């Protein structure tokens, strides 16, 4: 009786606390002493949790959340009677009443929701139904587009992910179920441009790998990153986490095996921050541990595998879900721990460790979604202990500030991208990647001159000048040419050509072919001789002759005997590229 009384008293106290807080399920951080010792915890975050589902009867699960550039937020979730519902509210205002998403092709439950927003504020939503079909619909200003089937009906399986490029192209990663061999699965990317009516399709794995659980992200250069789980032997004994990296043209740049090649490495997630760094996480099922790796575009290397310390010894095979989001330069990870709680963590790049930010839920969670708002991290989650409600937790984070604009483009030599070109003038002087692409966020109103530089190359245009940049500047492309060198050892002698009665002064120029042009295999078709008076500035160069490439001299005849000319001789290759005057 004494024990029962004690328990009752504790329950009473808890109920009182809940009553005092109304409906809000405030986070209850219940760190064990040993957990505290394991965690780095940053200063207490401002955390607020609200119920966002309506009063309709029945269970509600699988929420997805997103905030667009206008501050509008959308939460979708599976409602009762296997219907899909949504709720919508502008930030700071009250939430709208839940309503069903109209015209759904199937009303057979929904799972695996994912939501992204484009530059216009349109929300792009993805979910799968129980008929193994991936469904897509978008939402703007209170109106839904008609949901459409992305995958073939009945062919979808285990996971789907959506991302949006800066040009508002929607990218969906889908799992395609194959009957053979061994019911294997393959990953398909779907692309739909802003004005396209249908999705284009690109297979990125094959049936021999049997891949599922894709996660897709877009980096600031509009590269697409896909992390997925592959079953190498098709017998579920070697599940690895693989990564595929595509350029803006959706051409594969490289791939990487992120996990060790043993165990059950699955449910990968991925996010790219404003610096173009890419974080990937996954779960090793048998130890119930989360792992992460960070990709640095400057070094083009992945970090070593970092174990994510979420504080509590996990229950093997019980931990299976996490979500990543980038907020400016920061990465946030929301992860479940054996159904005990849902925790938000932040990556500390200096210490290379994940730091606890807040515990979102102490209750068991089936499914949740994480999204980076302007000044809050948004976590929508369902609750096994309260299945009739869906919750939204906001965690205050530093505001991203005024929206930056991105200047991006490609440097190409002939038709191929040229890597390693330093874009001087942009903040941080970024370099082009292996696809020749570059990109950098600039502050509102930024101005400056961007000039590509790489030893041995010249560029057209030489530079681009910006002023008061307030929107994304895409397609800032440059053409690269092998930098033809000008001639070597140019010498000028003032000489006189005379007979007995007549004569004149000439400047005799001699030079040597530049061996660097020969080394680069350049065919010099001609050379251009420029002249200016010594006192004139460099804009006054006048072309006075263009001897053939094999000629190594030129005489500037009939110059005034008291002239003070200086000369430059450039080389022109068979494509018309000319070396610089210097």
């Amino acid at each position, binding site marked *: 009786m004494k024990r029962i009384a004690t328990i009752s008293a504790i329950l009473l106290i808890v109920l009182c606390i809940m009553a005092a807080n109304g409906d809000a399920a405030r986070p209850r951080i219940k760190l064990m002493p040993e957990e505290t010792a394991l965690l780095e915890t940053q200063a207490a975050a401002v955390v607020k949790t609200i119920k966002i589902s309506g009063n309709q009867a029945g269970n509600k699960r699988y929420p997805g959340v997103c905030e667009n550039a206008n501050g509008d937020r959308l939460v979708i979730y599976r409602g009762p009677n296997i219907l899909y519902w949504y709720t919508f509210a502008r930030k700071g205002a009250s939430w709208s009443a839940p309503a069903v998403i109209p015209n759904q092709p199937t009303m057979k439950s929904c799972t695996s929701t994912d939501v992204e927003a484009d530059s216009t504020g349109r929300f792009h939503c993805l979910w799968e139904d129980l008929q193994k079909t991936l469904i897509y619909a978008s939402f703007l200003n209170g109106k839904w587009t008609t949901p459409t089937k992305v995958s073939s009906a009945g062919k979808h399986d285990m996971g789907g992910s959506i991302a949006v490029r800066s040009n508002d192209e929607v990218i969906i990663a889908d799992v395609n179920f194959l009957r053979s061999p061994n019911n294997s699965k393959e990953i398909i990317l779907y692309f739909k441009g802003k004005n396209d009516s249908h999705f284009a399709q690109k297979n990125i794995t094959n049936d021999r790998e049997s891949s599922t659980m894709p996660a897709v992200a877009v980096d600031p250069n509009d590269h697409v990153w896909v992390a997925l789980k592959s079953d190498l032997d098709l017998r579920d004994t070697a599940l690895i986490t693989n990564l595929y990296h595509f350029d803006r043209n959706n051409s594969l740049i490289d791939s990487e095996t992120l996990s060790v090649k043993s165990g059950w490495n699955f449910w990968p997630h991925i996010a790219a921050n404003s610096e173009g760094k890419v974080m990937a996480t996954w779960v090793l099922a048998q130890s119930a541990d989360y792992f992460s790796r960070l990709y640095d575009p400057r070094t083009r290397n992945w970090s070593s595998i970092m174990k994510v310390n979420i504080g509590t010894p996990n229950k093997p095979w019980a931990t299976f879900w996490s979500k990543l989001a980038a907020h400016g330069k920061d990465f946030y990870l929301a992860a479940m721990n054996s159904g005990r709680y849902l925790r938000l963590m932040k990556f500390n790049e200096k210490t290379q460790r994940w730091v606890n930010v807040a515990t979102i839920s102490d209750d068991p969670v089936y499914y949740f979604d994480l999204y980076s708002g302007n000044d809050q991290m948004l976590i929508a989650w369902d609750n096994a202990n309260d299945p009739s409600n869906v919750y939204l937790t906001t965690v205050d984070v530093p505001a991203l500030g005024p929206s930056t604009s991105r200047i991006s483009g490609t440097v190409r030599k002939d038709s191929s991208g040229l890597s390693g070109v330093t874009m001087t003038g942009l903040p941080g002087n970024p370099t082009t990647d292996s696809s020749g692409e570059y990109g950098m966020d600039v502050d509102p109103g930024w101005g400056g001159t961007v000039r590509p530089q790489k030893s041995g190359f010249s560029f057209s245009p030489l530079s681009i000048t910006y002023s008061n940049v307030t929107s994304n500047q895409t397609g800032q492309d440059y053409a690269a040419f092998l930098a033809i060198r000008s001639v070597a050892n140019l010498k000028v002698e003032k*000489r*006189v*050509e*005379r*007979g*007995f*009665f*007549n*004569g*004149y002064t*000439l400047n*005799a120029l001699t030079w040597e072919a530049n061996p660097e042009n020969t080394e680069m295999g350049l065919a010099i078709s001609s050379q251009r001789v420029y002249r200016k008076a010594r006192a004139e500035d460099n804009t006054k160069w006048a072309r006075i002759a263009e001897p053939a490439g094999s000629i190594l001299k030129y*005489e500037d*005849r*009939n110059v005034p005997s008291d002239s003070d000319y200086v000369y430059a001789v450039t080389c022109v290759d068979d494509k018309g590229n000319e070396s610089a005057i210097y």
Partner: protein
Amino acid sequence: MNSTTSKILLITLVFFILGTAMTLPAAAQDQGQVQNQEPKQPRFRAGVYFEGYMINDKNLKSFYHHSQRNLPGFEASIHTVYNIDIWASYRIYRDETKTTFYEKTDKFRINAASVGLQYRPFRWKFLEPFVGAGLDFYSYKETVEAGSDISGASGNATGFYVQAGTYVDIFKFIALRAFYRYNGVKKTLANPLPDGSKSMDLGGHEFGGGIVVRF
């Protein structure tokens, strides 16, 4: 030397020759016995000679790198009276070099003609000295090989000459001839030379010898 001065000098020389021609016969009469003993002298003389021409112009010498050119000449004379001959000569002065930068062949040529009087005052043994003076008529031309931007030039110049020498009898109709001649031929150029000079002195010293047929 300007043209007026040249004319005065030439006229003076002509009078000098004529005067000499007038006075020398009297002297010759003093030797009339000797002369009377000689057969009638031939009326015509024609010959060739080989001479050295030391041109005065320093620019020519500098540019063509020669202070003297050796050249053949032709001469002819007609005896008039009192051992005075009308004498004429023609020779071609040639020089050649390369232009200074492109090294194109640059040729210079003077067609030199002289007309004047020659007086043979006496004969002593086998020697028959003479003096003479007259006018020089020069035509000059520079030719530059194709490939250079330099154009040649040509022109004419006049001047005077004085000369002296002797015939040396070999046979009745053949004699040797040795001479020295000085030419005064200057030209003012319309366009200056590359070094800025505006005058050209084509005259100079000639000396040489040859063979003369008398008939």
